[in-house]
C-alpha cells in the first residue's frame, strides 16, 4: 500500500491545481481540428442516404461535377477496387460475431438513414455543400427493420446481406465453461426462483441515447510520396487508427502519421471507434494529392454517431424475505444498428454491459444472456457508461421493486447485499480488485438522516407534496486490463509514457492516448512534479501524435488515472534511479535512489543534506556533459515505461438524490444530488469533481431529455439540437461530491481511473426517487426516458 501519498502540504498529488490547458482555452487559442488549415486544402462533404434501407439504382454526379470549384465527386462504385473493405483484422474483437463487410461509401444499397453514399470535394466548403445537393440518386426502397426484437424474427428483412440473419452476436453468462455446467447452473437458478420468498419479473427498456460531444468529428489528410499520409483525426485512439488506415489503404504503417489535435471538443467514447469517413478522406488526399478536410456538421453527427444504450432486458430477480438477493436471470436484447463501426461493431458495448450487470451486489447465482440484433439504424457508437447504462438501470430499479415487495427500506437492502470483502469475482466473472464498498455506502448514508427524511416525507405527503429519495451504486472499470482488452477489442490495455528531460531540467511527457478535456496535461504534470520534486509548470505534455508518442490504446475506459499515470510514474522512477546513481558517483558516496530526496527543485542526500544538487544542474550534467560517468553508464535522460496491472481494476460510487414530483402533471424537480466515491488516491480533486459532475449530468440528460427517434420507416427525426435536447444549466441541479477512498494497491500511486462508467448508476437512482415519491400510487417505472408525460400517464393508470 502506498504510504506517503496523503494530500499533505508540499505534495502535488491531491492538490487542487488549476489546469494548464486553460491558459490557451480561455483566450481562444485552442487547437481543434477545424482550426487547422493547410495550403491547397480542399473541403469534403458527404452525400447521405435519405432512406433507411434501399437499393441504389443509379447515381448521377454530372451536375455536381459541373459546378465551378468542384474537384471530385466519388461514389461507392468508384472506390471498391481502390480500397480494401472493412473489417480488417486489427479492428476485430476476439469474439465470435457476424461482422458485416462494408466500404466507406455505401455500395449497392444503403442500410440506414444518413449512410454515406457519395463524397463531394471542392475548393470551398459552401460550394461542396451546393454540389452535394446536385448529386442525383435513384433508390428502390427495401423493407425496413428498426426494432431489435422484430429484427430477430425469422422473416425479418436482412440488414447485412453477407449474413442470413440479423443476430450479430450472442452470449450466455451462466456459470461454467461447458454446456452441461451451464445447464446445471440454469437449473439451479430456476430452483431458486421456484422457492424464493419474493420474485420480480419485468421488461426494462432503455431508449437510444448517448453522449454527443460539443465538437463533432473531423479529419484533415495530407499526402506526399516521400512521407506518405499525415492524418489529423478527431480520435481517442490515434495509434489504432494508424494501423487500420495502413491495412485499408494498403500502405505500410511506417508511412502513416495520425495526429489527434491537441484540443478535442469532448470524446466520451464517440471518438473511440475507427470510422469509415476517415478512410475515404485519407484515400482522396492520396488520390488527388491535395490536403482534404472534412468537418462533420451537427446534423451529420446526430445522424451517425453518439447513439448508444438501446437495450431491452427481461429481468427476473429473486430475494429472501429478509432482503438477501438470491438470483438474477436476464434475457437482454440490444439494438446495435447496422453494426458498421470499426473496433466495436455495435455489440461490444452491450457485451460489456451484460458482464457488468450484477454490479457490486452479491448474488448466489446468475443466468444472463444477450442477443444483439442489427437493424436499419445508425450503428451504436460507444458513449461514456459503455453498454452498462441500461442493465444498471434495470438492476437498480429491480432492487427497489423487490424492496417494495418485501417491505424493506431500499437503502438497507443495498447495504445488505453489497460485496463486503474484496477482491471478489462476480457471478459473470468480472474481477473487483480492491476497495471498500461498505465504507463508500456508509459515507453516503452519513450525508443524510434517512429516518428524519422518511418522517419529513410522510409529513409532506399530508401537505400534498410528493417527495422521494432514490439510491444507486456502481462498480466501474478503472482502466481496462489486457486480460479484458485483448478479447474485447483486440488491443493491449497497458499504459505507456515517455518522459524526457531536457538539458535545462524541464520535462516533456509523450502519450499515445488522445484526451478530449480530461485535463491530462495537468494531472500528468502533477505526477511528474511529485516524482521529481519540481513544479507542474516545468512539464509539458504531448499527446496523440503517432509520430512522436509510444503506442497506446487510447483515451478510453478510465485508462488515464489507472494505467497511463502509472506508466508516467514508472518512467520517472527509472530516470530517478539513473540520476541517483550518477549523483552518488559525483558526490563520491555509496547511495541509491532511496537515499535521495527529490524536493523543491533539488536532489538531496538524506543522510547529509549538505550534499545536494539542483535538479536543473543534474539534467544538464547528465545530458550535456556525459564524462566521468559511473562505470557502464551513458548520458541522456529519457525513459519510456509501460504499466500493466496484474489484475483488472475498478472504482466504486454510491449516489442518492431527492426529488419532488407534481402528481397533477408528472413534472419533477431534483432537489439534491449527493455522491460518495472511491476513486483511490486523487491526483487532482478539482478535476475529479468536474469529471463526476459531468458524468452525472450526462446520465441525467440521457434519462430525462435525450432520445434518438426513428419512425417506422427508419427516418431519424432528431438530427438537430432543437429535437435532440441536451440538458442545459437551468435544467440541472447542483451536485455534491464526497469521497471515501481506498488507495488502489495495484497502482504505484494508489490511484484509480475514474469517470468513464460513472453515468451508469444515475438513471436508476433518479427513477427510484421518482417512484419513491409516488409510493401512494404504487408506481414502478421500467422504461426510459423519464418524461413528465409518462409519469403522469402512470399516475392516471394507477388511479383507474
Amino acid at each position, binding site marked *: 500500500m502506498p504510504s506517503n501519498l496523503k494530500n499533505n502540504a508540499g505534495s502535488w498529488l491531491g492538490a487542487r491545481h*488549476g*489546469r494548464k*490547458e*486553460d*491558459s490557451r*482555452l*480561455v*483566450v*481562444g*487559442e*485552442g487547437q*481543434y481540428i*477545424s*482550426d487547422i488549415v493547410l495550403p491547397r486544402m480542399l473541403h469534403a462533404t458527404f452525400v447521405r442516404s435519405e432512406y433507411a434501407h434501399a437499393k441504389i439504382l443509379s447515381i448521377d454526379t454530372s451536375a455536381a461535377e459541373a459546378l465551378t470549384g468542384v474537384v471530385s465527386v466519388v461514389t461507392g462504385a468508384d472506390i471498391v477496387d481502390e480500397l480494401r473493405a472493412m473489417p480488417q483484422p486489427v479492428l476485430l474483437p476476439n469474439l465470435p460475431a457476424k461482422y458485416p463487410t462494408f466500404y466507406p461509401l455505401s455500395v449497392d444499397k444503403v442500410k440506414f438513414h444518413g449512410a454515406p453514399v457519395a463524397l463531394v470535394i471542392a475548393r470551398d466548403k*459552401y460550394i461542396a455543400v451546393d454540389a452535394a445537393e446536385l448529386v442525383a440518386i435513384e433508390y428502390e426502397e427495401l423493407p425496413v427493420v428498426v426494432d431489435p426484437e422484430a429484427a430477430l424474427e425469422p422473416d425479418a428483412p436482412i440488414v447485412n446481406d453477407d449474413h442470413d440473419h440479423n443476430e450479430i452476436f450472442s452470449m450466455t453468462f451462466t456459470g461454467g465453461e461447458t454446456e452441461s455446467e451451464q445447464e446445471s447452473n440454469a437449473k439451479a437458478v430456476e430452483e431458486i426462483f421456484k422457492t424464493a420468498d419474493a420474485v420480480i419479473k419485468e421488461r426494462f427498456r432503455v431508449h437510444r441515447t448517448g*453522449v*454527443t*460531444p*460539443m*465538437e*463533432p468529428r473531423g479529419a484533415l489528410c495530407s499526402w506526399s510520396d516521400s512521407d506518405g499520409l499525415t492524418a489529423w483525426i478527431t480520435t481517442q485512439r490515434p495509434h489504432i487508427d494508424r494501423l487500420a488506415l495502413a491495412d485499408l489503404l494498403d500502405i505500410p504503417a511506417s508511412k502513416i502519421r495520425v495526429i489527434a489535435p491537441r*484540443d*478535442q*471538443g*469532448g470524446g*466520451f467514447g464517440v471518438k473511440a471507434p475507427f470510422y469509415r469517413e476517415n478512410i475515404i478522406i485519407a484515400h482522396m488526399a492520396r488520390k488527388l494529392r491535395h490536403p482534404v478536410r472534412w468537418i462533420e*456538421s*451537427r*446534423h451529420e453527427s446526430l445522424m451517425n454517431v453518439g447513439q448508444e444504450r438501446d437495450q431491452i432486458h427481461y429481468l427476473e430477480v429473486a430475494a429472501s424475505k429478509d432482503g438477501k438477493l438470491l438470483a438474477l436471470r436476464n434475457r437482454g436484447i440490444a439494438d446495435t444498428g447496422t453494426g458498421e463501426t470499426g473496433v466495436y461493431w455495435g455489440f461490444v458495448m452491450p457485451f460489456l454491459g451484460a458482464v457488468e450487470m450484477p454490479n457490486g451486489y452479491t448474488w448466489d447465482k446468475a443466468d444472463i444472456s444477450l442477443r444483439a440484433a442489427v437493424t436499419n439504424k445508425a450503428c451504436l457508437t460507444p458513449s461514456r457508461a459503455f453498454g452498462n447504462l441500461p442493465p444498471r438501470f434495470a438492476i437498480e430499479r429491480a432492487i427497489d421493486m423487490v424492496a417494495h415487495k418485501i417491505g424493506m427500506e431500499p437503502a438497507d437492502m443495498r447495504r445488505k447485499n453489497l460485496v463486503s470483502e474484496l477482491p471478489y469475482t462476480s457471478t459473470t466473472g468480472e474481477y473487483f480488485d480492491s476497495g471498500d464498498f461498505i465504507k463508500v455506502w456508509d459515507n453516503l448514508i452519513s450525508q443524510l438522516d434517512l429516518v428524519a427524511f422518511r418522517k419529513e416525507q410522510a409529513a409532506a405527503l399530508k401537505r400534498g407534496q410528493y417527495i422521494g429519495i432514490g439510491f444507486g451504486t456502481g462498480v466501474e472499470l478503472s482502466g481496462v486490463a489486457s486480460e479484458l482488452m485483448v478479447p474485447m477489442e483486440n488491443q493491449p490495455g497497458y499504459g505507456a509514457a515517455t518522459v524526457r528531460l531536457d538539458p535545462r531540467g524541464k520535462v516533456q511527457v509523450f502519450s499515445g492516448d488522445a484526451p*478530449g*478535456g*480530461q*485535463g491530462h496535461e495537468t494531472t500528468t504534470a502533477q505526477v511528474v512534479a511529485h516524482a521529481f520534486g519540481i513544479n507542474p509548470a516545468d512539464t509539458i505534455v504531448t499527446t496523440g501524435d503517432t509520430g512522436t508518442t509510444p503506442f497506446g490504446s487510447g483515451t478510453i475506459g478510465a485508462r488515464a488515472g489507472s494505467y497511463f499515470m502509472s506508466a508516467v510514474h514508472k518512467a520517472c522512477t527509472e530516470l530517478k534511479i539513473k540520476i541517483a546513481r550518477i549523483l552518488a558517483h559525483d558526490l563520491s558516496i555509496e547511495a541509491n535512489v532511496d537515499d535521495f530526496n527529490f524536493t523543491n527543485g533539488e536532489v538531496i542526500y538524506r543522510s547529509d543534506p549538505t550534499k545536494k544538487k539542483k535538479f536543473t544542474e543534474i539534467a544538464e550534467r547528465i545530458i550535456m556533459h556525459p564524462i566521468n560517468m559511473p562505470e557502464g553508464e551513458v548520458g541522456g535522460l529519457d525513459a519510456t515505461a509501460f504499466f500493466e496491472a496484474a489484475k483488472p481494476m475498478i472504482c466504486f460510487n454510491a449516489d442518492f438524490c431527492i426529488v419532488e414530483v407534481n402528481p397533477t402533471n408528472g413534472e419533477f424537480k431534483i432537489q439534491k444530488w449527493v455522491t460518495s466515491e472511491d476513486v483511490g488516491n486523487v491526483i487532482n480533486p*478539482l*478535476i475529479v*469533481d*468536474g469529471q463526476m*459532475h*459531468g*458524468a*452525472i*449530468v*450526462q446520465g441525467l440528460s440521457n434519462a430525462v431529455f435525450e432520445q434518438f427517434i426513428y419512425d417506422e420507416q427508419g427516418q431519424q427525426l432528431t438530427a*438537430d*439540437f*432543437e429535437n435532440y435536447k*441536451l440538458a*442545459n*444549466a*437551468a435544467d*440541472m441541479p*447542483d*451536485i455534491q461530491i464526497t469521497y471515501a477512498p481506498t488507495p488502489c494497491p495495484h497502482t504505484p500511486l494508489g490511484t484509480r481511473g475514474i469517470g468513464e462508467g460513472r453515468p451508469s448508476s444515475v438513471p436508476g437512482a433518479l427513477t427510484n426517487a421518482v417512484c419513491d415519491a409516488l409510493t401512494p400510487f404504487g408506481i414502478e417505472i421500467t422504461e426510459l426516458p423519464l418524461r413528465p408525460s409518462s409519469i403522469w400517464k402512470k399516475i392516471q393508470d394507477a388511479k383507474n
Partner: protein
Amino acid sequence: MKTINIKINGAMYTETVPVRMLLVDFIRETIGLTGTHVGCTYEGVCGACTIHLDGEAVKSCLMLAIQADGHEVTTVEGLANNSEQTPLQTAFHEQHGLQCGFCTPGILMNMTEFLAKNPHPTDEEIRHGLIGNLCRCTGYVHIVNAVREAAKIIG
C-alpha cells in the same frame, strides 16, 4: 460578393465576401480568429459561436457577415487586455469551469455581457443566463461557480 468594413477586437478589416457567408465563417476563416466555435448546424442552439456585436452578445452563426458591415465585433480573443485575462476568464480557470473548452469561448462572451447587466446574480439567475450555451463536459456546476466567483470580484 460585397465589400464590408468590420472592426474586430479593435482592428479594422475591409474584405470582399460572398453575400451568403455567415459571420462565424468570416471571423474564423477569413480573419483567422478560431476561438469562436461552431457546435450545432447553424441553428443558434449550442452557443459556442457567441460573440459581441457592438457590445451585445449574439450568436455569430445566425448572422451573415455583411450584416456586421460597419459594426464592431469582439471575440474571445479580444477579452483579455494585453495578455491580462478578465476576472471571468481567471475564474473559469480557478474554478475549473471548463474541460474540453469547446463551448467555453461562447460562454465567456455570454457571461461577460450577463455580468455587465446583472453584477450580483443568484445561482438561479446564472443558470438561466446559461440556457443559450450547451456544455457536455462539466455538468455546469463549476461554470456556475466560476460566474459567481467572477461576480464577487467584478462587483
